[in-house]
């Protein structure tokens, strides 16, 4: 058994930020990441971030990942476990880790869950054909490994991920035949949509995918127009030839560890699915188990970084590790979150957070 002050599960923007603040408060920290690299999904995000300077606006996701990793990787009080999947979370703050064909246990005074999210899937005929990928999977393949999924892509979903990955596919030399969106409006920021339109990509709103065509791989897709009640309009079916279909219909929180430990959970549509109920100090119903980032509700990496820092600060404070900047930092971080969540773009997340007891209006 390994003993630590703090265990952080997940090495993405939230987990790395939590580590940074907890280390500043002098905690002995173990960070667990199931991938062979830290950085979470930032490592494939080649676009520049929005927001304010404190969340690295105007910097590309790939570079933010480097900054966050460099800030902590040489800290003496931090032990990093890569290729290490946490497979068990128990009520006495013990976790089971699977790494390189071995299982081992770690006991911590506090645990931060920053497991992130997974891509949702969509029901349609033939939806399991080879050549149908999550938009994030395609991003991994082309931006990390430099391998293209195919030659012609149809993107399903026009949220920010759908729009950004479509643009990145074009940058990598893949033709995007169309972006299909069931809703009447484009889901993501107009600035991303405009970039695609300038490149001549059609964004087809009120349109959905009915089936994938092909026998042992995707050869095309059938789409259809939807009316105001989301019903298919007969006679508007159209076939687009393509060898790849990307599904970008949202994310859902990776709640499994919290659910297995029987933390109090709630299903909130606006937050993407099942999320833990937590106090304003980010503590779940399990004592000294905290959660931050997408696992507490789907948002953006910018807010995940701020949440991670608050989470690190609280986990430390509750155990008597007082950060040199304790209260000033808390005030500053909460302020940053308020700014990130204000305005019409933050309405959905504010509405979702209200349901778990957080109020930003």
């Amino acid at each position, binding site marked *: 058994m390994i003993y630590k002050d703090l265990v952080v599960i997940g090495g993405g923007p939230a987990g790395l930020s939590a580590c940074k603040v907890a280390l500043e408060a002098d905690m002995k920290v173990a960070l667990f990441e199931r991938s062979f690299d830290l950085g979470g999904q930032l490592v494939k995000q080649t676009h520049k971030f929005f927001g304010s300077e404190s969340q690295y606006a105007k910097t590309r996701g790939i570079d933010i990942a480097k900054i966050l990793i460099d800030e902590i990787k040489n800290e003496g009080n931090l032990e990093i476990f890569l290729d290490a999947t946490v497979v068990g979370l128990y009520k006495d703050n013990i976790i089971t880790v699977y790494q390189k064909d071995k299982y081992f246990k770690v006991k911590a005074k506090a645990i931060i869950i920053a497991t992130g999210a997974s891509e949702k899937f969509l029901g349609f005929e033939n939806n399991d054909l080879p050549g149908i990928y999550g938009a994030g999977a395609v991003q991994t393949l082309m931006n990390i490994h430099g391998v293209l999924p195919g030659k012609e892509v149809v993107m399903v979903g026009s949220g920010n991920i759908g729009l950004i990955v479509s643009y990145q596919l074009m940058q990598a030399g893949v033709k995007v035949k169309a972006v299909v969106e069931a809703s009447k409006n484009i889901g993501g920021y107009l600035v991303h949509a405009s970039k695609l339109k300038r490149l001549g990509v059609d964004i087809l709103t009120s349109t959905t995918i009915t089936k994938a065509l092909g026998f042992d791989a995707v050869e095309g897709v059938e789409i259809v127009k939807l009316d105001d009640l989301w019903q298919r309009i007969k006679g508007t079916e159209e076939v687009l030839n393509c060898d790849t279909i990307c599904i970008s219909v949202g994310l859902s929180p*990776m709640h499994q560890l919290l659910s297995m430990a029987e933390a109090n959970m709630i299903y909130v549509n606006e937050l993407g699915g099942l999320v833990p109920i937590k106090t304003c100090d980010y503590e779940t119903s399990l004592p000294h188990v905290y959660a931050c980032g997408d696992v507490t509700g789907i948002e953006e990496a910018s807010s995940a970084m701020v949440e991670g820092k608050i989470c690190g600060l609280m986990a430390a404070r509750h155990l008597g590790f007082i950060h040199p900047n304790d209260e000033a930092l808390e005030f500053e971080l909460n302020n940053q979150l308020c700014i990130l969540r204000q305005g019409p773009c933050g309405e959905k997340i504010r509405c979702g957070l209200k349901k778990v007891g957080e109020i930003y209006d």
Partner: protein
Amino acid sequence: MKALYDKIVNVESGDKMRVDEHPILTFKNEEKLFFTYNGKKLQGFKGDTIAAALVDNGIMHFSNSIIHKRPRGFYCAIGNCGSCNMTVNGIDNVKTCMTLLEEGMIVVSQVTEELANDI
């Protein structure tokens, strides 16, 4: 479209689906690695996951659905979906999207009838 893929599958050198030019990223692809997939020798690069190297070799069919044996590719590439599981160096159900390619790896897809019925 099918003819296109058959053509790619028959090329054993890999390097068919790589990004040629990119405005932001550079891919080193310096060190070649050789591995076998279902008995055939294929080539990838150091830093590839097994899944990435397979896609580069034109392989999209990663597994079969359990009951109807329908062909499947991988979906998530970050270890969630399990559609990319293969037998690697004799170990079953290895997530090929999360496993880095190594020289001499023996990769076998788990699509035989016997194994599918056994699950």
